[in-house]
């Protein structure tokens, strides 16, 4: 059972009582906390946690509590915009939609159906995604449906295809409440899924369980709570996992009977991990021998295990292979499909999994394989279109779409509720590509991406629309409409329906392709599409979702209350006509043919793979001697479109920075808070330095939230745009860079001694000496050039750790290196 006691978190700003508390779900991260929206005079004035919702029992984190400020932000867009003579100018809905229709038709004629690309989001509703799938695939016959989920959870999907034949995380949050051991692998839930982490820590404080293993390149807030922390070198996830698998095999910590009866491929895996001896693993990963040994022993002997992964795995080298290796670990120990067990590959956004489930991105709706003619026929029948209208083959990721834009093969790029000009890697390249295409941006605010838009459509946001979300553990939650959107604003769903009508999209009998008119009607259609498939939702109604506070798919006649964990019968989706994908070669990413998949002869058994380590593509070298990694803060969500509009969150973490280790800062003479230039072969940015001990020497960390074109603080000016060969998820976590403090030169004169220069620039003499690498006694002669920092700011950011009841304890030491460290 989750949580011992409820705690209702409230953030309300209202004079007098609210008129109503409307049932809803937090729309920020993938945890899916239940909440109520406070409404007064048709305006959102607050939020409170839903104490009956098992996911959070009333708790909310700072992002969740502050999300509603964006609704009332005075800079909401309330009218469409069209670019005319280089400027975005207000337009009517008719003008904007007709222009989009005109461009769509023109593209279909001049380039063809793959000249149209939708790039949506992980923040939308299942109903919106399903409608994108139907319009994009059946209406426009496009193959190029992608979403920012590519940057977030594409690897989840591919590792699940590979090992189990279909999407759907095997374990759920309930297993987290039962397990003896948890491994957070490249996952920092203390900052990115705060309520989920609080839930785990609440149980740990009470019972001492679970034993927590954390694997990360940084000493994150999650790592601070670990029983065993493995701080590895960047880009060596798979090496570590191979080393752990090696020890498990060597010591016989495997379940032979489970392997024999329910899996294929074990021998190959055994052979592949043979060279990963402890000493080889130590050498590659930099993790001390004892820690690797201990991790393998605990994982090898524990009675129950849940492993989570997130961006530290998904956005790293060997992303899919690493997640598959984690699946391997569960399979060779038979720790799957049982209470307290299973891989729990997480999602980032509140409904990124939902987009995959209903086919707005990835495969066809209801886990249907785009390379299987039977599945294509099923979809054609369900949508009443010709089979030849539905494109065949695995999806293309955004990197591929950008390549097509560069070649002017995309005539219309429809960007829905995402801000790629801040979130895509190597964004200058992406910008140039976008500038070659007609770009529609659907966003409530002007963003970095609207700067390259030809049309901007203002959609409704959370609280102003209804629909369903799918969180990280297959729970479908309900959003209800608390208030009307501002005048002039329409929901994503209604915008798409309007487009379908204007395009006169028809089924093969000449009837409108889209004949539902409300999200609930759409959900009813989707239920029928999902029936009999892994993500069966035929047993869900909106009413039921509200009554039971969410249900986990599959929800059908057999499981009317949903399904806590998958594969309890150890029967996996690996029959060729059941599988959601025939998979890809794990090493090269080469898609498999049907006969190749059949040759694996999994037929209901899970697939264990041999996983082969490949180092990161770009590595530090003389010119760029540091590793660069990027990530998130507890205080902001993605590109801050919403959280940046909360005065509270914005005040706490107002600007970008770089975290650098104390040792490196000392070597470079960098002072805490000093402005530095970070450069990579892609570009450079200027940000203040936080001198910390949480990043390892040789590594720097930059949060990616700060992407404005003007501030020059965007981490994605720097990142590489390489992708995982299977999931096509970009490798944000490993680039190389150099760091240079930005300084002014001051000449020592008779009237300007060192002390005076220091004082004039707000420095101590010691600071000035450090900057100039002077040794005591500090002296400079008249005429000598002395460097002073160009600027210096306070970059302290408080941590958020309610589970420890300590809110102000700094989790890093912003300090000089102590001489005792030597």
């Amino acid at each position, binding site marked *: 059972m989750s949580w011992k006691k409820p705690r209702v978190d409230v953030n309300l700003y209202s004079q007098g009582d609210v008129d109503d508390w409307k049932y809803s779900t937090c729309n920020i991260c993938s945890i899916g906390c239940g909440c109520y929206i406070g409404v007064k005079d048709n305006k959102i004035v607050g939020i409170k946690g839903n104490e009956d919702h098992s996911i959070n029992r009333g708790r909310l984190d700072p992002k969740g509590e502050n999300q509603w400020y964006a609704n009332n932000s005075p800079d909401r867009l309330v009218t469409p915009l069209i670019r005319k003579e280089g400027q975005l100018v207000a337009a009517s809905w008719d003008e904007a939609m007709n222009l989009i229709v005109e461009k769509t038709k023109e593209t279909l004629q001049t380039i063809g159906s793959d000249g149209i690309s939708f790039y949506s989001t992980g923040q939308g509703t299942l109903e919106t995604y399903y409608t994108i799938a139907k319009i994009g695939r059946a209406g426009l016959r496009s193959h190029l449906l992608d979403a920012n989920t590519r940057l977030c959870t594409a690897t989840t999907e591919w590792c699940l295809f590979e090992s189990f034949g279909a999407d759907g995380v095997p374990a759920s949050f309930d297993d987290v409440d039962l397990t003896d051991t948890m491994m957070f692998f490249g996952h920092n839930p203390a900052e990115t899924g705060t309520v989920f982490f609080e839930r785990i820590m609440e149980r740990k404080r009470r019972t001492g369980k679970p034993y927590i293993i954390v694997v990360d390149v940084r000493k994150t807030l999650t790592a601070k709570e670990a029983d065993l922390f493995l701080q590895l070198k960047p880009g060596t996830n798979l090496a570590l996992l191979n080393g752990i698998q090696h020890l498990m095999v060597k010591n016989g910590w495997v379940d032979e009977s489970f392997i024999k009866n329910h899996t294929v491929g074990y021998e190959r895996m055994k052979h592949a991990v043979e060279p990963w001896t402890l000493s080889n693993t130590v050498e590659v990963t930099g993790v001390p021998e004892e820690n690797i040994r201990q991790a393998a022993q605990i994982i090898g002997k524990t009675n129950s295990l849940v492993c989570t992964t997130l961006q530290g795995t998904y956005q790293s080298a060997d992303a899919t292979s690493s997640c598959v290796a984690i699946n391997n670990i569960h399979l060779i120990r038979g720790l799957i499909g049982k209470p307290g067990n299973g891989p729990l590959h997480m999602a980032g956004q509140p409904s990124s999994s939902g987009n995959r489930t209903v086919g707005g991105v990835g495969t066809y709706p209801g886990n249907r394989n785009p390379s299987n003619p039977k599945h294509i026929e099923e979809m054609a029948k369900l949508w009443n279109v010709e089979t030849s209208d539905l494109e065949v083959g695995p999806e293309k990721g955004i990197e591929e779409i950008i390549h097509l834009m560069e070649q002017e093969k995309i005539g219309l790029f429809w960007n829905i509720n995402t801000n790629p000009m801040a979130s895509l890697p190597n964004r200058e390249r992406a910008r140039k590509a976008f500038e070659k295409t007609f770009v529609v941006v659907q966003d409530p605010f002007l963003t970095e991406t609207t700067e390259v838009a030809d049309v901007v459509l203002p959609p409704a946001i959370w609280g102003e629309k209804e629909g369903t979300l799918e969180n990280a553990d297959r729970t479908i939650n309900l959003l209800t409409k608390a208030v009307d959107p501002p005048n002039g604003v329409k929901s994503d769903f209604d915008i798409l329906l309007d487009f379908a009508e204007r395009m006169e999209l028809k089924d093969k009998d000449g009837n409108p392709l889209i004949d539902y008119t409300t999200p609930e009607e759409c959900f009813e259609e989707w239920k029928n599409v999902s029936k009999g498939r892994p993500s069966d939702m035929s047993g869900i109604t909106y009413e039921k979702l509200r009554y039971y506070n969410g249900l986990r798919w599959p929800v059908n006649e057999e499981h009317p209350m949903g399904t806590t964990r998958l594969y309890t019968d150890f029967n996996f989706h690996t029959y060729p006509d059941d599988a959601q994908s025939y998979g890809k070669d794990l090493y090269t*990413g080469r898609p498999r043919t049907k006969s190749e998949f059949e040759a694996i002869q999994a037929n209901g058994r899970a697939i264990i793979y041999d996983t082969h380590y490949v180092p990161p593509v770009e590595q530090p070298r003389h010119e760029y001697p540091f590793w660069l990694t990027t990530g998130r803060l507890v205080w902001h969500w993605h590109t801050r479109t919403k959280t940046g509009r909360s005065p509270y969150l914005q005040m706490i973490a107002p600007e970008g920075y770089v975290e650098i280790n104390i040792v490196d800062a000392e070597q470079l003479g960098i002072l805490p808070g000093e402005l530095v230039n970070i450069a990579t072969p892609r570009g450079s940015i200027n940000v203040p330095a936080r001198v910390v001990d949480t990043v390892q020497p040789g590594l720097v960390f930059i949060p990616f939230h700060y992407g404005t074109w003007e501030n020059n603080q965007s981490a994605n000016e720097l990142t590489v745009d390489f992708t995982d060969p299977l999931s096509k998820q970009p490798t944000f976590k490993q680039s190389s860079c150099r760091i240079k403090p930005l300084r002014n030169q001051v000449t020592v004169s008779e009237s300007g001694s060192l002390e005076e220069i220091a004082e004039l620039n707000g420095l101590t003499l010691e600071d000035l000496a450090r900057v100039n690498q002077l040794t005591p006694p500090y002296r400079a002669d008249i005429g000598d050039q002395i460097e002073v920092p160009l600027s210096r700011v306070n970059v302290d950011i408080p941590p958020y750790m309610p589970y420890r009841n300590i809110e102000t304890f700094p989790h890093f030491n912003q300090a000089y290196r102590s001489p005792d460290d030597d």
Partner: protein
Amino acid sequence: MYYQLYQAYLIIQRLLANFPVNNNPLELRISPLLSEANNTLLTTLQLIQQPQVNEHHLKYLLSVIYRNDEALDPLTRAWGRASLWMDSASPTVIHERLKWYKAYKKELEQLVPNVKSLYGEEEARYIVPPLYRKEVGA
């Protein structure tokens, strides 16, 4: 069909002749793909010269050739960027190789009408990935 396959085979020979270029980690992934392309093209060339072509086997080989390039193409482009950024090969060499990879893809695109005429539009969809066979206005 023979002409395009043979041209494709020659290009792969050329690409294999000076491989690896700089031992960038991407070449570890590119290497088995180049070998697979080489072997599959050779087998296909031999097969289509038989008096009685096994169409089922040919379909499989063609499927592999296209899927192979679907994986190879993005990896080679990434290799090009990585090599330039890492300054690990001369730009002339990099651009030259990228040109040949592109030419290889072009050959496969030109092969599509043959595949379609041999197997029909519908079946060809399961052999040739969309971006190689999409026609304007399709």
